[in-house]
């Protein structure tokens, strides 16, 4: 899977250009680290998305592009006294090609890890050819 070189959602046209003119209104996005591996039935994608709940996760495929977009949230009581990280929003795109059956993608979110199962389309699977030996 090739990574799409679309750095932030602002350039994808999903937002109006007005948003970009507001000073410091742009949300910060980072690409989540992913594992992608092949199985017999297709591709499996695992992405670390700490602080992301089901409601704040958006995964979609259009135009042969897989988009993962998520908003991280957490609530800790009290006043901060020591900080090592900031939760940031996630955004990453991959080119999936036409061999993936976009209708049949399964997603599962568990312990802050997204698992996507991207099945290979039936037409793209290797066909068994019988060879007759006389």
């Amino acid at each position, binding site marked *: *899977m090739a990574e799409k070189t679309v750095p932030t959602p602002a350039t994808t046209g999903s937002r109006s250009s007005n948003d970009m003119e507001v000073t410091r209104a742009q949300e910060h996005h*980072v*690409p989540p*680290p*992913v*594992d*992608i*591996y*092949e*199985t017999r039935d297709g*591709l*499996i994608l*695992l*992405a*670390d*998305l*700490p*602080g*992301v*709940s089901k409601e704040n996760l958006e995964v979609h495929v259009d135009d042969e592009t897989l988009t993962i977009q998520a908003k991280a949230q*957490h609530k*800790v*009581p*009290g*006043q*901060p*006294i*020591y*900080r*090592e*990280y900031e*939760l940031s929003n996630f955004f990453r795109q991959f080119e999936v090609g036409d061999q993936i059956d976009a209708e049949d993608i399964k997603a599962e979110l568990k*312990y*802050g*890890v997204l698992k996507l199962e991207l099945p290979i389309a039936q037409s793209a699977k290797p066909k068994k050819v019988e060879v007759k030996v006389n």
Partner: protein
Amino acid sequence: MAQADTFQDIDALHREIDRAFENLVPFTGPFARMAFLPGRLARGYPLVNVHEDKDRLYVEAMAPGVDPASMNISVVHNTLTISGEKKGAPDEIKPEAFHREERARGKFVRTITLPVEIDDAKVGAEYTNGLLLIELPKSERAKPKQINVRVS
């Protein structure tokens, strides 16, 4: 006197540089997999934020993909230790089947020294969406005492 100041400056700069490297966030981008390699960074996983209110400290650790059953949290006086294992893809997946392998994985232990003594009997922990929130009640001795001033 001027000389002593110079040495102090160098010393301060040295500490500053050390601190900058300690705070290097190695868990995103190309550094993501360094988190579990032996050495200095291994003891820095998971990253934590600490919050405080009058009675409690709250430690939030960013640890996505850790099975809660593998996690172990212990508190002794003012020392908090978090350990566990972050699993990656299943073991039976052959290396050549990977297109990308960016997520960190492995066993970790992190020890944090807290600013106050903790009542270790009442520590609670919760794991949601890959974030571990540990609630640590301050021990009675560490709580601020109100001292009344008598007017004579």
